């Protein structure tokens, strides 16, 4: 037991092979590892043997919450999963994914800081948690069901509609690398293919009912005034301050703003950032992201438990095809799931209808297919059909070509139904696919990179040859790195983004960086002043309109890159929402719009009673960054993480017999020297890596974490482990 507030104190272990459950105390890990991802990484390090495949029973799936989850702290309603990722490419390295909604807080209120799944159940099961009572329940009758009906049935089985579930659909059951775990009608544990991991363990899902509470060291009664101050500083998601209708902010409440999908349209109007009672009304993603495609169906906003912003769009479709629910919650990526625009001879001949957009989103969530991955699937399909002047299609084996041609391509062409039929067909073929078959649908389930490798397209996708991924216009989808499609990458967000796309094992998803650089609503000069206040140099951030510029690895750029890594780990440990934290900007002109980067530590200290400075808390999070690095070195079986010219991360993955080095890499098309205007300068990225490695205390040449650094932040056992594996040359750490 502990006097700390915040943590529940227990971690639930579920041995699916033996069908046995037990609990262990959280205190062996915290406060040092903070929570959620910090604990998950430690568990993977200690309990997953080197060489384990992501879909092997020996892999471990951890789903955890942090000390702030379910407390009165704002925007702390998320859970984080850690496991080896089957979506990792070319190596199934460690990954993380988070999910919000109502499930994470329910888990905390049930009395758990996390759940560890190991082994593989002989038959499908669901983990049922009612406060301290946890058991495995047979799920044979649920296997094959979509995620929405599964959750409904679980609530009915428990006789409690307050129960919250996180489940997989048919895609996860097929152990697909694109499999997500879904909660509610739009919250997804999406990235990294953890739905496939759950499927490999015969785990249909988790349903939990928690009636307990979170003890906080500081009662809310004595923190209310300060909490309001913090909410004012947060202002709105990503620190947006402007109500200007011309602002690029995605939180641009304005005079003509309203929700048009309600029975009677609801006028929202302009909302000043200091009006705390209306910040949750500001955002309208279905307006902002989709250029109004979904605007007529936007019913209202919603948020995860504890949110003060409400970034989700609740949409109600009309006249949807049979079997597709009209109501759904969604955010940016989900709205883009089925979006396309087809252009021929400079004329738009087909444009995604709102029916196609909502159908694709709903089918992604119902089948449990990660919407983010679907975008890259879709472009592989289109490229396969039309790309390289038809040669990709022509060289396909006949049975694959027939399958490709059988898709309703007319749906996305002139005179078609603006994509509805096509989206439904692509999901249906994957829903019913035999996972081990040599079929297009089965390969798509393996994720775009592996599918592209099978279709002899991967090298072109890697290098940018033949204009791949330009079959659809409107959204350009490109390969980023590590099996993930580009998203807020270095082409617009400069060196910090280039470094993170190189070193992170998945889409690094640094929303806070984009919030500062793009979405804050400030003028460029104001943003630079904020950067100067936080990092000592206005040049820490780069103008995203000035594309394909990395620049010199200045101290400020590297400090920003380090901050992004550390605070990403921190928000996934506490757990907080990265659309809100860190608080780079605030609406206060007296502070020159600079936010408060100590809010995480302040909230952590108040909730847990573990008084700590922001710098000290950052170091705890940095230890997790180092551990993430160490596990990745183990997964890649290399001390040479740098990558760069001469390394090829395309081709076949190690699960297909490949052998790779050079983790820290970007797709080659980023460096295409023949492009006009010029693309990224490879030498600048390499110089940036060196500076970043040095700042992190890693090997400046090969980029691996060192014994000195691991020891300095209290992880000598990790250094010992790497040494045993031959991945840490202790002599190198002295250089």
């Amino acid at each position, binding site marked *: 037991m502990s006097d700390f507030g915040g943590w529940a104190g227990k971690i639930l272990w579920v041995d699916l092979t033996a069908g046995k459950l037990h609990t262990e105390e959280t205190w062996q890990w915290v406060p040092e590892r903070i929570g959620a991802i910090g604990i998950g990484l430690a568990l993977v390090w200690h309990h997953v043997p080197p060489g384990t495949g992501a879909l092997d029973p020996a892999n471990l799936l951890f789903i955890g919450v942090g000390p702030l989850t379910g407390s009165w702290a704002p925007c702390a309603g998320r859970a984080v999963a850690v496991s080896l990722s089957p979506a990792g490419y070319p190596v199934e390295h460690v990954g993380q994914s988070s999910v919000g909604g*109502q499930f994470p807080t329910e888990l905390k209120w049930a009395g758990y800081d996390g759940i560890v799944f190991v082994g593989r159940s002989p038959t499908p099961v669901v983990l049922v948690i009612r406060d301290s009572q946890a058991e495995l329940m047979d799920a044979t009758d649920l296997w094959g069901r979509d995620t929405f009906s599964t959750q409904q049935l679980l609530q009915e089985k428990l006789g409690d509609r*307050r129960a919250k579930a996180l489940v997989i659909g048919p895609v996860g059951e097929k152990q697909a690398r694109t499999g997500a775990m879904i909660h509610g009608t739009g919250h997804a544990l999406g990235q990294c293919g953890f739905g496939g991991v759950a499927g490999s363990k015969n785990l249909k899902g988790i349903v939990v009912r928690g009636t307990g509470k*979170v003890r906080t060291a500081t009662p809310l009664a004595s923190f209310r005034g300060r909490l309001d101050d913090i909410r004012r500083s947060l202002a709105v998601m990503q620190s947006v301050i402007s109500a200007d209708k011309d602002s690029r902010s995605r939180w641009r409440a304005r005079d003509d703003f309203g929700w048009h999908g309600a029975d*009677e349209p609801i*006028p929202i109007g302009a909302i000043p950032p200091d009006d705390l009672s209306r910040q*949750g009304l500001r955002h309208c993603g279905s307006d902002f992201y989709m250029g109004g495609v979904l605007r007529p169906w936007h019913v209202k*906003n919603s948020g995860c438990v504890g949110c003060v912003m409400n970034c989700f769009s609740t949409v109600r479709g009309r006249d949807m095809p049979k079997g597709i629910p009209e109501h*759904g919650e969604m955010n940016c990526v989900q709205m883009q799931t089925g979006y396309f625009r087809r252009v021929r001879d400079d004329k738009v001949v087909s444009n995604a209808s709102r029916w196609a957009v909502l159908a694709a989103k709903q089918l992604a969530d119902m089948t449990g297919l990660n919407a983010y991955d679907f975008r890259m699937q879709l472009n592989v399909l289109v490229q396969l059909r039309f790309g390289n002047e038809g040669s990709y299609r022509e060289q396909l084996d006949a049975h694959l070509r027939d399958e490709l041609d059988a898709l309703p391509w007319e749906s996305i062409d002139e005179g078609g139904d603006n994509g509805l039929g096509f989206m439904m067909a692509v999901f249906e073929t994957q829903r019913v696919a035999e996972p081990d078959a040599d079929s297009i649908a089965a390969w798509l389930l393996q994720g775009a990179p592996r599918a592209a490798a099978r279709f002899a397209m991967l090298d072109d996708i890697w290098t940018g040859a033949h204009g791949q991924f330009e079959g659809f216009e409107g959204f350009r989808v490109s390969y980023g790195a590590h099996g993930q499609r580009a998203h807020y990458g270095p082409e617009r967000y400069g060196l910090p983004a280039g470094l993170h796309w190189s070193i992170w094992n998945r889409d690094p998803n640094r929303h806070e960086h984009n919030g500062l650089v793009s979405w804050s609503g400030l003028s460029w000069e104001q943003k630079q002043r904020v950067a100067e206040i936080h990092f000592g140099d206005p040049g820490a951030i780069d103008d995203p309109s000035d594309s394909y510029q990395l620049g010199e690895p200045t101290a400020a750029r590297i400090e920003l890159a380090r901050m992004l890594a550390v605070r990403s780990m921190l928000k996934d440990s506490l757990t907080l929402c990265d659309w809100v934290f860190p608080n780079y900007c605030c609406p206060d002109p007296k502070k020159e719009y600079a936010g408060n980067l100590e809010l995480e530590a302040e909230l952590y200290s108040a909730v847990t009673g573990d008084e700590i400075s922001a710098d000290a808390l950052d170091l705890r999070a940095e230890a997790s960054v180092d551990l993430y690095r160490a596990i990745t070195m183990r997964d890649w079986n290399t001390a040479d993480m740098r990558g760069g010219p001469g390394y090829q991360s395309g081709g076949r993955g190690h699960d297909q017999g490949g052998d790779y080095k050079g983790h820290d890499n970007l797709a080659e098309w980023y460096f295409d020297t023949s492009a006009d205007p010029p693309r990224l300068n490879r030498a600048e990225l390499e110089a940036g890596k060196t500076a970043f490695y040095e700042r992190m205390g890693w090997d400046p040449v090969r980029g691996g974490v060192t014994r000195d650094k691991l020891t300095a932040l209290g992880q000598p056992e990790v250094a010992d482990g790497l040494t045993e594996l031959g991945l840490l040359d202790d002599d190198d750490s002295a250089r």
Partner: protein
Amino acid sequence: MSRHQPHGSPCLTRRCFVQAAGSGFLLAVAGVTTGCGDQEQWGVILSDPRLCGACSRCAITCAALNADGPGVAQALVGPEQHYQERQFDNANWYAATCRMCPVIVEDEQQVSPACVAACPVGAAQIAPEGHPIFGDERVRFIDQDRCIGCGNCVTACPVSHPLLDDGVARKCELCIGRWGAPPCVEACPSRALLYFPVWRGDIPAVFPCQLEALQAGLV
């Protein structure tokens, strides 16, 4: 059937109640909106399902202040209270509140507020005007010293609002005595909750959803 207004209580008819409940704007109290003239009213928290984003900040705040720790099962307001009516989507969620039901007497028997009518020991009460804690809000409250924890109020309540906690029932008392004003309302980022202090005569000009207020002919 006969109806009459007990001394000191607001007049409400069942017709008023049905009109308000069916308006789509799930009022926490009947009779506020229309049809009852300008008679005396009482304090109440209104919720608008069309604005509620199910973030549960109201519930977290309520439980943190009144039940010694955030955990929505202890909250007296919030989406949790609404699950029995919920469809499987967030569009129908709203932060259910105590409706501070009107006084309705049928056949000389008080039938509403249901909690007051169902309580066998007189613990569920309507605070009189000038109450030392609740002021003039006419709060429907439960006297914890009298409550025997029988649960009749929970069963009788049309929205199953009261909670049984440590052998006694608790219900929303608007936080008037403890926090001065309802903190759940202050915590809502979507103005889906609004507190109406007691008023006489004129209807307040500000409503959480102006459109709805317009439809109801209130502003």
